């Protein structure tokens, strides 16, 4: 606890952040998983997930996050998201054409339905979430390198 006092914002902000950041993350995952049933989907959920991490970084200082997630790791995860989306699209060739939805559709309006669309939403959310977080991380690192000069 003691070392956390040095960087970041005040104790009040840190305590509230500890309470809310998990809720924001869970809400983002909910938006991603229900993307094929209700408004939302991969992009909106990914943005909410990225904002949870940005929130954490603003409250606890950049060292709390940059020591755990480096810029290279964020870049790699973003590429993995794009490749997952491509692989899901290529799976369609087993049934005949690009982006063909060959998995079982299930019954409509249930959580596990509509074949490959939830998987595509998950891939897009990974790409968007990590990408938006990487933009913020790059701006923070740029700011830090300027201050060291």
């Amino acid at each position: 606890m003691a070392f956390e006092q040095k960087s970041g914002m005040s104790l009040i902000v840190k305590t509230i952040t500890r309470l809310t950041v998990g809720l924001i993350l869970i809400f983002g995952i909910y938006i991603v998983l229900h993307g094929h049933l209700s408004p939302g989907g991969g992009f909106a959920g990914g943005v909410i997930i990225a904002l949870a991490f940005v929130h954490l970084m603003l409250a606890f200082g950049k060292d709390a996050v940059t020591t755990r997630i480096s810029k290279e790791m964020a870049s790699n995860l973003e590429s993995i998201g794009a490749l997952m989306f491509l692989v899901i699209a290529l799976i369609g060739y087993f049934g005949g054409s690009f982006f063909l939805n060959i998995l079982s559709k299930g019954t409509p309006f249930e959580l596990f339905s509509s074949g490959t669309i939830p998987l595509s939403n998950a891939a897009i959310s990974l790409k968007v979430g990590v990408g938006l977080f990487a933009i913020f991380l790059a701006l923070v690192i740029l700011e830090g390198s300027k201050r060291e000069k």
Partner: protein
Amino acid sequence: MTLYLLCLALFSVGLYGVLRKRNLVKIIIGLGIIEYSMNLFFVLLGYRYHGRAPIDAQAQDILNMVDPLPQALVLTSIVIGLGVTALVISIAIRIYEKYGTFDITKIKRLKG
């Protein structure tokens, strides 16, 4: 019609910020306001009164839906706006690093 004119007013506010302000951060905020006024205008073009969201929900008749096409376009536009804003902010940070000011009238040196 009133709503479209209000969109135009919002656009004018952003344009005033871009043309008249001298601080780079205020110019970037003006760009953001212009972008959002355009997004609002596109969504309003597809709106119809007493319409409902274009979602295939359970046990509901597909009646009086608003036009989903501008909404899909605006989603793309928001993503592009995010990229543009990130680019402009990083350029502004570089300019501050080089000249030590955000005031555009004091950024005169062309090289060095």
